[in-house]
């Protein structure tokens, strides 16, 4: 057992941490050793003792294999196993785990962590683990899709937020994603190792990706983070399509919710972004009709026509489209948006005036008393959608609402804070751009196209006005770029 332990802690040696090539060789050798060890007869019986002697942060690779064995040993106490799993997933060294994708996947999935832990703990653990592997959160894997589906189904949304708030820009199965760099290179982008080829993920279908973003949208809807929900749904709505007549059912579903969320977010119907492909665009025009006319009435009023718009369709319609609860919120927000719009006209307005000028979305009539308005307005202020305060004058006059003017202009600090924030986020895209560039750099077709561009520039023709053959090449490779 001491001999085994010595082997286990032999990697990584302190001396090789800085040398990528050395590290790579040692890691590969160590993995082979571990595979051999794990098939030996004593392995399972020694595992409970071995695990106590290993540090998950330094000897992550060894720890992973031992833990793997413990999971299959039935006699090991469950509570201990859970503690070990938790320590491992929160502290492992991502650089080492790059070498054991299969074992890592197995540890997550067989049996599923979701079955061992309570749902919210499992979600949190997987989220932490995935983010540790890929701090940028830019690569989508089948672990992500499974995780988000599970989190939504079990309503464990809070713990999954850190991962769904990241913007995915890489997908499994990208051509040229096999990096020429070594796995041990600390600068290796996550898209370089979290690949199908490396067994970090199963190949994903279009359906999975659409569903993933739709689910992200639904999670944000649950959280009432309308902006994030809107953005996530928009990703589904604008999903690139080469089909000029049709759209996927998931896209249609997302589009309907997108319109409703847009209403909640901005008080008006959203406009399809220019990137929307032609086929889906046509489909939305038809499938989105009841939603658009509802939005129209929401925006323009009067309240009667808004009420008529949603009442003309039976509740079963909204139920079937799974939008009834969202619709209820839209109806609830109708009056709120009317009040919000008053801030463009008034700086101060009495509650009684608000009462006569706005109508409830449910009854299409003004609320019964100024007190009800006060409750509504105070609720809005608490929710943070309205900046202002309700004032009760000391002389006993009628109460009124003051819209704060400061909401529109920013202070110098606030401005610079937001500006710096954006700049940092753009800077943070640097590695992603670099990774994309690298990926393209190893793509034969792209290089051919680039060489042609260069040649043309040298001949002084500029990059425009290519001949027919180039056009074909361009189209093949740059669809995304040209469309964007």
């Amino acid at each position, binding site marked *: 057992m001491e001999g085994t332990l010595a082997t286990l802690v032999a990697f990584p040696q302190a001396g090789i941490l800085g040398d990528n090539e050395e590290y790579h060789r040692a890691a590969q050798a160590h993995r082979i050793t571990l595979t051999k060890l794990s098939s030996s007869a004593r392995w399972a019986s020694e595992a409970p003792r071995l695990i106590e002697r290993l540090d998950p942060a330094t000897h992550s690779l060894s720890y992973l294999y031992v833990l793997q064995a413990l999971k299959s040993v039935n006699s090991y106490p469950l509570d201990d196993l859970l503690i070990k799993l938790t320590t491992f997933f929160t502290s492992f060294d991502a650089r080492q785990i790059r070498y054991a994708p299969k074992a890592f996947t197995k540890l997550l999935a067989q049996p599923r962590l979701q079955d061992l832990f309570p749902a919210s703990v499992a979600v949190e653990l997987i989220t932490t683990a995935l983010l540790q592997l890929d701090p940028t959160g830019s690569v989508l894997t089948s672990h992500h899709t499974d995780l988000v589906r599970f989190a939504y189904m079990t309503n464990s949304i809070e713990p999954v937020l850190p991962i769904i708030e990241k913007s995915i820009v890489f997908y499994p199965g990208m051509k040229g994603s096999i990096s020429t760099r070594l796995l041990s290179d600390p600068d290796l982008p996550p898209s370089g190792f979290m690949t199908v080829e490396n067994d970090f993920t199963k190949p994903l279908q279009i359906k999975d990706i659409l569903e993933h973003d739709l689910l992200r949208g639904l999670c944000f809807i649950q959280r009432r983070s309308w902006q994030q929900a809107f953005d996530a749904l928009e990703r589904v709505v604008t999903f690139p399509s080469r089909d000029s007549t049709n759209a996927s059912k998931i896209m249609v579903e997302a589009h309907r919710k997108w319109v409703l969320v847009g209403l909640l977010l901005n008080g008006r119907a959203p406009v399809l972004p220019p990137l929307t492909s032609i086929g889906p665009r046509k489909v939305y025009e038809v499938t989105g009709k009841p939603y658009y006319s509802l939005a129209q009435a929401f925006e323009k009023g009067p309240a009667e026509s808004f009420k008529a718009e949603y009442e003309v369709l039976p509740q079963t319609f909204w139920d079937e489209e799974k939008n009834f609860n969202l619709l209820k919120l839209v109806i609830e927000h109708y009056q709120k948006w009317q009040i919000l719009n008053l801030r463009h006209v*008034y700086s101060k307005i009495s509650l009684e005036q608000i009462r006569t000028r706005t109508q409830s979305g449910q009854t299409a009539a003004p609320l019964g008393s100024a007190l009800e308005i006060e409750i509504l307005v105070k609720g809005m202020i608490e929710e943070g959608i309205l900046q202002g305060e309700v004032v009760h004058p000391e002389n006993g006059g009628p109460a009124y609402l003051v819209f704060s003017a400061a909401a529109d202009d920013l202070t110098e600090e606030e401005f610079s804070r937001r500006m710096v924030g954006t700049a940092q986020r753009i800077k943070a*895209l640097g590695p992603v751009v670099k990774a994309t560039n690298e990926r393209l750099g190893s793509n034969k077709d792209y290089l051919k196209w680039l060489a042609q561009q260069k040649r043309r520039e040298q001949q002084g023709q500029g990059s425009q006005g290519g001949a027919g053959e180039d056009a074909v090449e361009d189209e093949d490779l740059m669809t995304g770029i040209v469309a964007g």
Partner: protein
Amino acid sequence: MAGPLLEFFTQMDNQGGIIVKDGPKFDLDLYIQNYRGRTKFDRLLLIGRSSVKLCVDALRAALAEAKRGRDTQRYRDVVEYLRIAAPNDPDAVYDQKWLDKQEIANHEETQRLLAELKGYKNNLIKESIRMGNEDLAKHYESIGDLNAASEYYSKMRPDVSTAKHLIDVGKHLVRVAVQRRDWNMIPAHVAKMTLGGQYPDEERNSQPFQKVATGIALLGQDKYYEAALAFLEADPSVSSKVYNEIASKNDVAVYGGLLALATMDRRELQAMVLENQNFRAFLEPEPHIRRAVTMFVNGRYAACIEILEGYRGDYLLDIYLQRHVSKIYARIRSKCVVQYLIPFSCVSLDTLEKAFGSPERPIEEELAGMIEEGVLEARIDGIESLVNTIKVDPRAQMQASALASAENYERQAIERLRRMALAAADLELVGTRKMGLHHQLGGDLAFGDQEILMG
């Protein structure tokens, strides 16, 4: 209002007509003398249908006008109106004899002219064909068949041989188009009347006709600013006979002045209306328009509105202006309010009510409407009854736009990277010919109507 008259105007109201209860400031006889041709009848009929005070007089005059002409349909229409509005009037009976005679005569004349034209065509004499077409078209116009008139007028075009002919064709076509309210065609016809500077006399003579017709067409299309420019350019030295088949000199002043007031700022009004020598001549018979413009330029907005309100009834009886009066007045009003507020940062609602108040609508509502439409940059303080104007802060604007473009850049960058990756992974939607994407991808996926709990 007496019984039959009341009934008449109830009917007019139901048909969506505009009804003017006050008596106008003009004299009907003098007014109608300014015009020539078929527009006389149209104008009289409109006044008859709209003005309570002038109803019977105007209808009677229209009836006389119709009987002088050959258009039997007009006669029938006006008698019908008169019978409702004044059943006891001696004129309110069909003159069946005249009608029959006139219809036969019209028919014969049509046949005669058609035969004549056929003869000319056989002889291949261009000038005769042109004249034959013109005669026939004029006849059609006089009996009210405007489609045929338009058709035969345009058939004159291939046979024109002098500049005057060309101008004539244009005038005929424009006149018919104005009667048909075919606003889109008028600029095209007018454009064909230009001669490229080769015949300065003819061009000068037809200039006001072209400008007036263009102005009326643009007015009809709600292009107020362009219409104002057209009227302001008209040449007053040419006799109004040239264009009084569509509008009078007074009309040019009113249309031009009102539209300019509605669309131009004070500097433009000063330069293009008050200091415009040409337009001054038009303004002479309509001094109140000039006064209103002067008031506006001098910043006496309430006085300007007061003058205009005094004439609202008159303008509602104008054949082209009627439909636009309320829109034009509303624009002038809101411009006045905006201009009035410019030098102040804060004005009390009472002051505004005194300056601009109208009995129909409290000023607060009007201001709210203007702010919502974006005409006015201000906020109403409903508690202190104040209007606070908002000074545009260029710094804040710059900051907002900088933030917006930075955020947009970030979004775009991510979106492009994502699309490139999707393209590289071959994950774009591609249709299958057999069943389409709808089924292929749809499955029985449906998420998302859990009770929305958190907040």
